[in-house]
């Protein structure tokens, strides 16, 4: 364990992030990059971007609360130190996505009301399930919920958004690239650290699987809210681009239903694989209405 945890030291983090892929960036992107004029001038597009970004801020606020809350529950110094780097990563994500809201025209005084207005209630419930485990000091359930379920979800959503933004919005795509690199590290820690703890505490399995099932239910409900209904149908046909290919789907031409399908399939596939690696069995939730 000690050898693998050495890969998650602050020293390693310093070399990889501030002195690595974040060097010379401002709020996660190149200083010269801006939101596209086309997006800022179209009220519907801008509102959709604000709605999406609010979802990212809500998710990252949850991740910040969870990772900092788990530090005091961690059973060893190396895990505490890793979670400290994760706390800082999550705070950075909160900051860069909040900054994007400002770049999209949200005034600082209106930030909280904008988040309240656009936050998806099912995403809030998803976060509450995790934060209850964290506030109870349940390290194993907390790390599974945070570093496998929440981070696994974030990882796929960010990847999809990044693929869909490369051509049209390089600034947002670059912001997402840095967060994807962070999330990959977080998911890796969750898988590596938690497997041995699950082996030591098999009695925790059923409770953790129930948590995963509940979180997955709310996640699928968020997807349904995000992709279904007339408000989610694009008003004009986008320009097809080969660079927007993600898991066999061209995101520049896919319908909302196709996007929901590819995202849900990808995230659930990742969950099953990662949970199996730590000795847990994926639990299918009931289908949200």
């Amino acid at each position, binding site marked *: 364990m000690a050898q693998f945890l050495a890969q998650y030291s602050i020293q390693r983090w310093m070399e990889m992030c501030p002195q690595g892929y974040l060097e010379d960036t401002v709020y996660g992107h190149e200083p010269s990059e801006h939101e596209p004029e086309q997006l800022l001038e179209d009220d519907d597009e801008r509102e959709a971007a604000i709605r999406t970004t609010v979802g990212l801020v809500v998710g990252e606020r949850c991740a910040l609360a969870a990772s900092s809350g788990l530090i005091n529950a961690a059973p060893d110094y190396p895990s505490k130190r890793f979670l400290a780097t994760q706390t*800082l990563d999550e705070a950075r994500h909160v900051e860069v996505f909040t900054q994007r809201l400002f770049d999209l025209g949200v005034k600082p005084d209106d930030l909280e009301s904008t988040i309240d207005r656009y936050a998806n209630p099912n995403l809030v419930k998803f976060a509450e399930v995790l934060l209850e485990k964290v506030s109870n000091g349940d390290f194993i359930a907390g790390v599974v919920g945070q570093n496998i379920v929440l981070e696994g979800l974030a990882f796929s959503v960010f990847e999809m958004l990044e693929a869909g933004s490369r051509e049209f919005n390089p600034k947002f795509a670059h912001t997402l690239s840095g967060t994807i690199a962070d999330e990959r590290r977080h998911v890796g820690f969750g898988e590596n650290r938690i497997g041995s703890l699950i082996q030591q505490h098999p009695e925790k399995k059923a409770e953790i699987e129930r948590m995963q099932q509940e979180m997955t239910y709310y996640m699928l409900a968020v997807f349904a809210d995000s992709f279904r209904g007339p408000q989610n149908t694009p008003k004009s046909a986008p320009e097809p681009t080969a660079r927007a290919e993600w898991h066999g789907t061209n995101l520049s031409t896919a319908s909302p239903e196709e996007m929901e399908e590819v995202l849900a399939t990808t995230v659930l596939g990742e969950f099953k694989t990662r949970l199996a690696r730590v000795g847990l069995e994926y639990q299918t939730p009931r289908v949200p209405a």
Partner: protein
Amino acid sequence: MIVDDFDPHALAEQDFLDEVHSFQFWFDSVEGYLSDRPYGRLETTVDEQLDDARRERLITTLCNYSVGETAALEGAAGLVQLAPDRNSKIFMATQVADEARHLEVFLHRLRELGVADPEREIERRAQPALVDFKGALLDLIGEGDWQAGVFAQNVILETMEYTVFRLHAATADPVTKDVLAGVISDERRHAGFGENDLGRSLAVDPSGRIRLREIRNQLDAMVVGVFEGALADVGAPADSSSELAGEYLDTIERLGLT
């Protein structure tokens, strides 16, 4: 933004807080003094051969620094949850990473000095007053009291650490001196946040001073114990106790908590 070319104090108050409590500001700050310093030391610094007595004293000192930094790490993590606004939350998250880095560099230095199991050694050598202080700090934060937590963590603990580290750095071996230099720069930022945050909230609601004075009275005996222990550990002359206490008392006075 390059910190050297930029004076945040020229900004209006809210813009100043947005700036100095951001990840971006932290990132630019630490880049200046932590780049190319693996585990806090310059690669060109040559380690000095320490005699047994000095090495032994240094191990005890570093063990107690690790207790302090663990308290600070757990305290800052708890304060992220309690922070009343986005800027404070993000600042506290940067402090969490700083404290974890301090713990890491001290543990690394202990290993360089030949301590095979630092965690066990820390338990063996921890000063009781410091352990008591850690418990009291985490209790205050556990009660969900942001103002009391910031006072105990960012004013008392950080001022103690800042003062002791500076005193120690003056006579430390070259590698420990390198390590302490980066830590001191961080502690200055943390103490500045604490004094600024409390100063602003006490200006709006001076009644908070009564409670903070009570907390100070409860913690003072532990603080004195920690200072005395630290002085003995770093082998400082007895007359440096007034210098140590001076920094702490000045901060307390600036906040109107005497």
